[in-house]
């Protein structure tokens, strides 16, 4: 009980700290932040349920007014901005990522965690993000999708990093990678 709660809180804090890492600007001028790397790690390390709870806890703290989103943003305004879909998608993305890592045991963890991060942290997350943006800006899904495709290369990079990190963590602290512990 205590360990689960602390791990969930820890990963919520990890998402916050990763949001403070300065933006890296990719070759073609698109800024990427490390914050969604935290979401992917929630899934790959904590597993489906705990990963989703960590994201929910983080969003709750953002909602009550802590500046934890990248760039020091936060507060209730974040939940009516056009990128609200991405925030809503975080717990689902972590859940899907974690679910895949928990179930798919037949391949090397680097590959499993990396692909799970692509499916959860990119496919699922962008699904939510694009729908949210289309609703908020009254654009079609295709138009909304066109606005966010520039960010996908950065997220593929983050998924690869999440895969490698998860495998390295499983070697160094096998008991802490809860998605594979049971």
């Amino acid at each position, binding site marked *: *009980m*205590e*360990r689960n*709660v*602390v*791990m*969930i*809180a*820890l990963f*919520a*804090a*990890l998402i*916050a*700290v*990763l949001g*403070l890492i300065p933006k890296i600007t990719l070759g073609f001028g698109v800024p990427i932040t*490390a914050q969604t*790397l935290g979401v992917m*790690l929630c899934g790959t390390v904590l597993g489906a349920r705990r990963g989703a709870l960590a994201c929910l*806890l*983080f969003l*709750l*703290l953002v909602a*009550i*007014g*802590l*500046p*934890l989103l990248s*760039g020091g*943003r*936060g*507060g*209730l*305004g974040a*939940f*009516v*901005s*056009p990128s609200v879909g991405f925030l809503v998608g975080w717990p689902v993305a972590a859940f899907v990522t974690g679910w895949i890592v928990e179930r798919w045991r037949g391949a090397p963890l680097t590959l499993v965690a990396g692909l799970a991060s692509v499916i959860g942290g990119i496919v699922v997350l962008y699904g939510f993000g694009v729908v949210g943006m289309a609703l*908020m*800006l*009254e*654009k079609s899904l295709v*138009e909304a999708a066109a*606005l966010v495709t520039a960010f996908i290369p950065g997220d593929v990079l983050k998924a690869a*990093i999440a895969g490698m*990190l998860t495998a*390295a*963590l499983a070697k*160094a*602290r096998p008991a*802490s990678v809860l998605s594979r512990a049971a």
Partner: protein
Amino acid sequence: MISLTSPVRTRAHDWPAGAKLAGLCLGTMVLFLMSDARLHLAALVAVLGLYALPGAVFLRDGLRKLWMLWPFVLVVALFHLVDGSVLAGAVIIMRLITAVALANLVTMTTRLTDMIAVVHWLGAPLRRMGLRTRPLEVAMALVIRMTPVLLDKGTALTQSWRARSPRRPNWRIVLPFTLLALDDADHISDALRARGGLVTPED
């Protein structure tokens, strides 16, 4: 930790947080149901007027928080200028700015403790159903405490990287950083358990 509550004290700081949140829900719903451009203009002017009431410092702070919306405003404006449906675009942009401004206003005038009290109050039905909300409250406190601690550890790691390598720290630093954090989590959960755990019998 510094929250987004404005240091400029306004009369709204003393209003009950629950009422402000309920008003915000209602106001946002109305904004999304309205489609008349004149009403949206009036709403935008009214909300910006509310920002101006507590004085210049509050207004500047509030406008700076709205500045993050500019990429969206630019994209929507360009789209509708090309499309020719200028009025429809204006409605979308005004609604976007008013909705975010209204939500930020509630955040800026509500203290963290009042917000946490609302969360606790919202948990009351769960407690009546027999669910314990204490783990959630402890977890919130833990995140607020651990974020600066983790940040310090990250800074220390970055400095030791710089002391040893001519190259800039890159993503590889996340592994030792996460390991430090995981070990911390073990110590914290041991400490919590040693102090009687999260769920006491009388809960």
